[in-house]
């Protein structure tokens, strides 16, 4: 504790240098935390778990919602397959089929079955009844509403579809917070797809063990049909369909690594400069009886503090930025909400602290390895 106080006072000695170092670390850690947020959001969206019980039925060999067209009457056939719990037909309309940071996705669903299929949806503003009663009513996900500044009663238009916001929703599923749910017949007509045609079916099964069996059964059922299907677990569907987006996010891993090395170099350089500027003072402390270990600990604490303070500013800044901007990465009609998470915050601070520690080890050794008399005469 005594050494910590001494190290903290040392950092105030050259305030400009300390502030510049902290600013540099903050910038690096902002980048690192941003990359980690993307990776984490992607991992949540694509990594399957034992709780996953949802299948997506898509048109075989189609990858974009505008080309996947399935007859709505498949619904009753799928419902009859043993192990199927719930099925919902979905028509999807998007403003941009390619990769975009501001994708607007309409999901046309039978309004009366939405709550039954997805009980995790909660209306936080407006009302579900308004949605049921208005044919052009839309339940808008919170992220989308924040991004577009929408509130109940507002009208908005995208890709020729005019809707009225009936409610703002939150959901257990991050995807739901980036879409607007509308009435299926309304969207089928507004998007000129035509009644009776849907983009996909989302199927809930009794248990995750049955995912493979049921998906095989569905595809087998429609194999000889005019519109054959390709059924996959929801997360695998996301991972395969949004391949380009995943590759792009995968590439950002290198940016994160670059940021880590930049922070490491910056802190090491700053601590080395601190140590070089205090050769004589370090020798004085050793003359007073401070051991090499105590001197090293002071130097390391300074490095860790620089890393930690800069990390705190950078990581909290990145988390606030993502929270404020509510970014959603979209591709092929799928949306990936870039959501700040506590695990990224904690790991970011841990990395910042570890980098500070690592960066100060060599300067700490350098500070204590020189012969005392030589340092006193420096």
């Amino acid at each position, binding site marked *: 504790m*005594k050494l910590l106080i001494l190290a903290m*006072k*040392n950092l105030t000695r050259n305030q400009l240098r300390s502030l510049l170092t902290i600013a540099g670390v903050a910038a690096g850690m902002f980048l690192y935390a941003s990359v980690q947020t993307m990776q984490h959001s992607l991992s949540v969206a694509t990594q399957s778990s034992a709780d996953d019980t949802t299948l997506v039925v898509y048109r075989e060999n189609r990858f974009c919602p505008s080309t996947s067209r399935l007859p709505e009457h498949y619904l009753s056939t799928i419902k009859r397959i043993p192990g199927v719990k719930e099925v919902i037909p979905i028509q999807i309309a998007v403003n941009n089929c390619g990769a975009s940071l501001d994708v607007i996705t309409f999901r046309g669903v039978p309004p009366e079955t939405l709550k039954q299929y997805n009980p995790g949806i909660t209306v936080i503003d407006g009302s579900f009844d308004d949605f049921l009663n208005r044919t052009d009513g839309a339940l808008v996900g919170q992220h989308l509403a924040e991004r577009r500044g929408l509130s109940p009663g507002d009208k908005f238009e995208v890709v020729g579809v005019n809707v009225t916001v009936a409610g703002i929703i939150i959901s257990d599923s991050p995807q739901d917070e980036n879409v607007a749910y509308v009435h299926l017949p309304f969207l089928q007509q507004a998007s000129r797809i035509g009644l009776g045609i849907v983009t996909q079916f989302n199927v809930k099964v009794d248990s995750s063990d049955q995912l493979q069996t049921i998906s095989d059964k569905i595809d087998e059922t429609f194999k000889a049909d005019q519109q054959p299907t390709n059924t996959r677990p929801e997360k695998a569907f996301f991972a395969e369909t949004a391949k380009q987006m995943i590759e792009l996010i995968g590439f950002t891993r290198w940016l994160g690594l670059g940021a880590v090395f930049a922070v490491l170099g910056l802190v090491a350089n700053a601590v080395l400069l601190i140590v070089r500027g205090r050769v004589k*003072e370090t020798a004085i402390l050793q003359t*007073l*009886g*401070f051991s*090499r270990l105590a001197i090293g600990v002071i130097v390391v604490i300074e490095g860790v503090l620089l890393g930690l303070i800069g990390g705190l500013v950078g990581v909290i800044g990145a988390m606030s930025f993502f929270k404020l901007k509510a970014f959603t990465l979209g591709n092929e009609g799928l949306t990936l909400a870039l959501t700040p998470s506590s695990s990224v915050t904690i790991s970011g601070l841990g990395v910042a602290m570890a980098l500070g520690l690592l960066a100060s080890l060599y300067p700490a050794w350098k500070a204590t390895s020189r012969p005392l008399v030589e340092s*006193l005469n420096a």
Partner: protein
Amino acid sequence: MNPHISVKSVTKAFTKGKTTITPLENLSLDVPRGEFLSLMGPSGSGKTTLLNLIAGIDTPTSGQILIDGNDIARLTRAQLTRWRAKHVGYIFQLYHLVPILSAYENVELPLLLGKLGKSERKKKILSALDLVGLGDRADHRPSELSGGQEQRVAIARAIVHDPELLVADEPTGDLDRESADSILNLLDTLATKHGKTIVMVTHDPKASASAHRALQLEKGQFIEEGHLLTHA
């Protein structure tokens, strides 16, 4: 009675490039407890080297340095550090106070190494500052003090952990006459009234005259023993 410091046949040599330099050669010296000894001599005579050896900052190439009968020349670097923390107070020519710390915090530094509680540390620090006449300057930073006051703080830092041995390297070298006299009086008080053994290196004959005994070094050898003063 055994001397407090006994330097026996000490030689210190080191190499600089291809040249071997021997600042001290086969030197011996006894210093009784409570003596205020001054070491004089031209630059390169070996006086600071001898001071550093006595203070445990450096180690001899050969010979013994007995402090209270213990040969510190045989201690490792870590053992010497612990020994210095307990037994030695060092006073530098340029004070070398930590600029971001107050006088109080500078004096506290040697005590941070021990296990004393905050209140015990405070008592010792204020007592040391009072002894050097700076009890009312505890909160001042070095930049707010005069050179003489800074050196007094440095002396308070050197005595706060109550070492038996004080070593001073040109303690008045950077001070005006008045401040220098005041510091020398303080060192004399520490030796005569508090029983500290003081070894001081100086270029200043007037400063040397304040000591109980003065030794002249040249080329690593004592060439003349000076006055033996008796102080009241």
